[in-house]
């Protein structure tokens, strides 16, 4: 099987798997208990926190709170900080766990500000900053790497502008698609107040993630109970998953330079291959929804999104599946809704173009050969399916 849907989730790294398995067997003691087995579990969790902080170059003012994953981390920060009446803003290209969490504040009469007019090719325009100031916005929510397109927000630059032009606006970043693919220096964190991570997007286990946030902030807990993690997030800590998360982050950070180079090579191969297909197959008209050039500061090499009207992405997906190739349809969270991708529509795609699209997303385990196989099978599937959709295109 060729797995090219790594933005949806990733296979477990064998080393991480071993860590989790061993810990599942050995570390069953509740880390909140006072006998030595519990103390040991707690020590391992604290070591994991340190490991994560080190791998991401986190300054000491940040706290790490473990959550069930990225969605919970986003919810905890947004609701914990903005509920009931702190004004928040977003671009409209974020994951539903950000946008829906913001929408949930509407019950308090706290309508989030949507920066639709301040988008430039998926990024936030500089002009948004004075507007945020004018609207007295207290929190700006952005995705570090967009989950459907791979657009990278210039976080450091935005943070610097906010400090200067809209100092009361804090910055929250959904980092679910970025960790393991982007580099983190201590300077990155200067203007960031909150950041979310999910283990299963970086070859770690499902069901674990964390919220990294500025310790000076007072977050209202969203899950009440036994006051674990200082009361910010109650619930017995899953030691094995936490160790798995830490190991996955450590491995990805140690291998980052080679992973980056590898992802870039895969992406180049894919884009050039698609262009070649376009010239070989006269009826294939491609549109790159991701940035079509190798500008890796603005575009993550891990994701490539493209449209090919009039053939529907979902039908191509199943034809590729038959050949053992798994690819993505926009975002997996909305793949069940049958609605064309909100993000692609926001970017100016027609309904047709949004429906006729695929998202290829790479992980470190993918190979150039796999990309070649994908290209061959995609070309074939497209040619098989084109006649059926052509008549459709003419009649509509």
């Amino acid at each position: 099987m060729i797995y090219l849907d790594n933005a949806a989730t990733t296979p477990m790294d064998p080393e991480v798997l071993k860590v989790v398995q061993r810990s599942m067997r050995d570390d069953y003691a509740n880390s909140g208990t006072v006998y030595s087995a519990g103390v040991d579990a707690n020590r391992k969790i604290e070591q994991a926190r340190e490991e994560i902080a080190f791998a991401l170059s986190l300054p000491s003012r940040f706290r790490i709170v473990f959550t069930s994953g990225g969605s919970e981390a986003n919810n905890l920060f947004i609701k914990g900080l903005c509920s009931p009446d702190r004004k928040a803003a977003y671009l409209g290209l974020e994951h539903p766990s950000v946008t829906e969490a913001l929408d949930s504040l509407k019950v308090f009469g706290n309508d989030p500000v949507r920066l639709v007019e301040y988008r430039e090719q998926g990024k936030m325009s500089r002009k948004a900053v004075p507007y945020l100031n004018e609207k007295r916005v207290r929190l700006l929510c952005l995705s570090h790497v967009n989950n459907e397109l791979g657009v990278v927000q210039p976080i450091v630059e935005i943070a610097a502008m906010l400090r200067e032009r809209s100092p009361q606006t804090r910055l929250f970043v959904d980092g679910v698609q970025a960790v393991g693919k982007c580099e983190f220096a201590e300077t990155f964190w200067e203007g960031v107040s909150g950041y979310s991570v999910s283990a299963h997007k970086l070859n770690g286990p499902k069901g674990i993630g964390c919220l990294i946030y500025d310790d000076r902030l007072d977050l209202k807990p969203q899950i009440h109970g036994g006051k674990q993690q200082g009361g910010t997030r109650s619930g017995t800590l899953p030691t094995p998953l936490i160790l798995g998360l830490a190991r996955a982050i450590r491995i990805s950070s140690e291998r980052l330079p080679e992973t980056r180079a590898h992802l870039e090579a895969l992406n180049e191969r894919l884009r050039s291959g698609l262009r070649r297909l376009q010239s070989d197959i006269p009826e294939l008209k491609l549109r790159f929804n991701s940035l079509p050039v190798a500008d890796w500061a603005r575009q993550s090499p891990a994701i490539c999104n493209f449209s090919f009207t009039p053939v529907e992405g979902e039908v191509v997906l199943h034809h590729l599946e038959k050949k053992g190739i798994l690819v993505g349809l926009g975002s997996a969270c909305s793949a069940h809704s049958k609605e064309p991708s909100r993000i692609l529509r926001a970017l100016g795609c027609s309904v047709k173009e949004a429906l006729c699209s695929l998202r290829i997303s790479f992980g470190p385990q993918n190979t150039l050969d796999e990309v070649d196989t994908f290209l061959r099978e995609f070309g074939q599937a497209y040619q098989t399916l084109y006649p059926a959709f052509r008549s459709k295109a003419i009649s509509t």
Partner: protein
Amino acid sequence: MSRERTILIRYDEIALKGKNRRFFIERLRHNIRSGLRGLDGVRVEVPHGRVLLHCADSQTQEIVKRLKVVSGIASMSVGVMVEPDLEAMARQGVEWIAPLVEKNPNATFCVRTRRSHKGYELTSTEVDREVGGRILEQLRPQGLSVNIDRADFRLEIEIGLPHTVMFQNRIEGLRGLPVGTSGKVLGLLSGGIDSPVALFRMIRRGCRAHAIFFDNQPYMGKGGHDKVQRLCRVLTRYQQAMRLWVVPFEEVQVAIRDNCRPDNRVVLYRRMMYRIAQALAEREGYQALVTGESLGQVASQTLENLNAVSRVVQCSVFRPLIGMDKNEIITQAKNIGTFDISIEPQPDCCSVFMPEHPVTKARLPELENDETRYPWEELLQQALEKTEVQDPEPSPF
């Protein structure tokens, strides 16, 4: 309480069956037995007009749950064997009714006796009065009263079954006829709301219903197939065993799409489905086809189109939902437990195979003409050869 319990099972329609009655009752007894597989120590008796189950008190809840899905049972009551003695009967009655009165001081009850042991010293009405009077005497101070027509608690006494047994309130059964008394049918199952209900209605009329599913992978994902499998697991609850035939259908659809008039496609697909289903039914000894069609519900379900489709088969085609409206169908789907599965979003292939304007009044000569343009006999054979069979396990409930 580790006391032995007796469950009385009533059937209604079977009672009318004249000379075939034995066959129906034997079938019901067999179905009850296999429905209770895995429960030890349950004894089944079939005295005149009734089925009696003897079991441990701890088993009653599980048994009632399982009996609720056995077709042919009109109602059932849980009870105990008692001495045919008025004091003993009243004592049992008080034991059951007292907790009820405690919760609701306005509670009402009635006693209903049936006497098949005609040598018993009192008539049924006398027993009603005597036992009822004794219970009332004890519980009237707490607020209990008698209500013959709408009692909260209906105490039933059967004297001489051969035993004397007392029962609590009736629990509704599925009604209908025991599965296996009406033969075998093959239902066209799509994954939507209607077809599982149609199959269920045939099961309740005593049929063993098997299913056929037309799969158009790779145009559609595995989601449709998976849904149909889970629907079959729910339907298997009602009949213990069924088969699911999965027919690869994409080649037929591609051939029709590429060669025939677009407006006629839907009817042409259905004609092929009927043909394949009939061929399979003949091979496997199924006596009729069943579909979930309901008149006028969608474009393919007009009288003209139903007729155009039925023309291609010689066997009986049953459409138990033909006169039902959508809300009735949905209510039944919810009751039998298929609704939640049916409404899960299912990837469909409309965009590839469906025309913009499907014909609502297909004309036979046109359809026959379309069918000269692709090798349907050959494709039918191929589809049959590639058909796979599965035996879904009943899903727990």
